[in-house]
């Protein structure tokens, strides 16, 4: 068995990656919903897959799970080519795709029983305890007997996450897992993802709200209009942008002169003070030079741009739906 696994793992490119795609493309008619995507998701990472609504995230996830055939390109999950190897690899992948979907007239528990019954790799003898454990993990154990139709959106979302946790997984693909959850629920999902990740599970989580995932991700990929516009570890993606130094002062003209002399870039006066980009200049040097030059410094800050700013800069939009 070692032999065969070994062969499977090494014969496919991207065997050390949880998800790898090359030139992945899906066209619906003339429009490319996903265009030439090269995803690289290392094992053990928490990968935030970001992008506005309609930027192609869900279509990508459908292709990764073998639901939709790509128009071009290849993809692999845990080293298995998709869709050819889907039956082999999907038992090790838990997924949440485009919101929860269950039979409305069955209870939450009965819905999970149905999914568990469908899984050939699931042991029927442990079914009950695994279902209870999954329900407990998302806080639904008490309401498991209620019909799904009576569930609130947040409870439905939790049930869908429970379904993804029915079996031990190496990879979780979670499409907008915090959709419809209140702030408390969102926090719980974040903790859940963190605890799964600390067990070694790779988590691929999509969202159109950066703030919801940025705290938990080790890696980011940003989609815009079907294309991947940024990808890498969170620090790499952040690294593309420079910090800003701000001085609050009542002598802006002198401050501009001193900061320009120090070699800061893009120095300009702003209401109440001055800002610039400190390249190769330590913050304490700036403050010392300002004070020496007789500039009264009320406040001095150096900030890295938030990922949110970066996200907006990359995707170039706020509430608009692309495509």
């Amino acid at each position, binding site marked *: 068995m*070692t032999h065969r696994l070994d062969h499977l793992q090494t014969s496919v490119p991207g065997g050390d990656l949880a998800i790898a795609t090359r030139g992945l493309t899906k066209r619906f008619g003339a429009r490319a919903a996903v265009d030439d995507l090269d995803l690289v998701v290392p094992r053990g990472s928490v990968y935030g897959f970001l992008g506005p609504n309609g930027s192609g995230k869900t279509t990508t996830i459908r292709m990764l799970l*073998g639901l939709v*055939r790509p128009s071009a390109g290849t993809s692999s999950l845990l080293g298995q080519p998709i869709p050819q190897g889907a039956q082999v690899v999907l*038992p090790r992948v838990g997924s949440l795709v*485009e919101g929860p*979907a269950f039979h409305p007239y069955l209870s939450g528990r009965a819905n999970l029983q149905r999914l568990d019954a469908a899984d050939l*790799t699931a042991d029927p003898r442990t079914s009950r305890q695994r279902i209870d454990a999954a329900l407990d993990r998302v806080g639904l154990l008490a309401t498991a007997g209620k019909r799904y139709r009576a569930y609130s959106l947040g409870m439905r979302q939790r049930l869908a996450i429970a379904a993804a946790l029915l079996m031990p997984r190496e990879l979780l693909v979670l499409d907008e897992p915090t959709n419809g959850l209140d702030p408390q629920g969102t926090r719980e999902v974040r903790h859940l993802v963190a605890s799964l990740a600390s067990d070694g599970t790779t988590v691929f989580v999509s969202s159109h709200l950066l703030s919801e995932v940025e705290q938990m991700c080790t890696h980011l990929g940003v989609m815009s209009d079907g294309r991947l516009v940024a990808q890498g570890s969170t620090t790499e993606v952040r690294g593309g942008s420079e910090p800003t130094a701000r001085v609050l002062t009542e002598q802006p003209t002198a401050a501009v002169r001193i900061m320009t002399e120090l070699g800061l870039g893009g120095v300009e006066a702003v209401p109440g003070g001055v800002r610039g980009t400190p390249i190769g200049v330590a913050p304490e040097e700036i403050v010392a030079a300002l004070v020496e030059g007789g500039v009264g410094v009320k406040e001095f800050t150096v900030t890295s741009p938030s990922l949110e700013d970066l996200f907006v800069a990359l995707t170039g939009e706020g509430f608009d739906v692309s495509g």
Partner: protein
Amino acid sequence: MSAAESVLTDGPQRVAGSDGVPLSRRLSTRLLRSELRLIAGRRRNQMGLLVLAAVPVFIAVAVRISSPREGRGPDFLSSITSNGLFVPIAALSVELGLFLPLAIAMLAGDAVAGEANLGTLRYLLTVPVGRTRLLVTKYVSLLIGAVWGVAVVVLAGAIAGIALFGTGPMLTLSGTEISFGSAVWRVVLVSLYIAVGLAALGAVGLFISTLTEQPLAATVALMIFTILSWIADSVPQISWLHPWLLVDQWMAFGDLLRDPPFWDNIAQGLRVDLAYVVVFWLLAWARFAGKDITS
């Protein structure tokens, strides 16, 4: 090597998942049983079964009430009504026109289109359930549904009939009388023949169900198919078409009530049923195996 090792050391379940599933589990009927529970548990289906069962009871009571008083009616009717098993036969022939095909159409609509409509299809496929395995499971549950529906009509009819008319000898269509015991066997044969016809209709329904995400659209389409088949079968000018129609020999079940049974039309009917099953099952598979699931 290290990747393989990590898979192996991750625990026994993961190894089972990444490698072959044991044959015993591959042949598991868990999904089929879950499917049948889903069908049986649905309130609409339970109501449907009640309607199917009500028809024979209605027929039995109506005949009992209107049956001729001593010495006034025709001998023929009184000789039929000496055996209660005429009730399930009459009920089947009445329900075969509309109610039984409708029951199959409802189940077929739920089978694939219903799951697509709810979105549960994408979750079944990512469990994963192979598409062929899902289609086989759905079709087998349709087969069981067909037998189930016919059995309900026959059992309700037999109980009502025997209660109201007793277990005397049965008059065959050839005019001879057969014992109650052999009459029971004839009814079983008729039921099976009709169930096979409905199973063939189920294959057509399964195919239609893979074409849409609206279960009601699939149900209506299958009913239109059925009714158009009945209409075409009743137009003598296109008699060349009749041997190709699924419903053409459905009513031939009466031949099983002759003494001895007349097999030619029954055999022809079964051949057509089988051809429909093969053709439409393959169409359903060809359609479903490569379909983009965007629901």
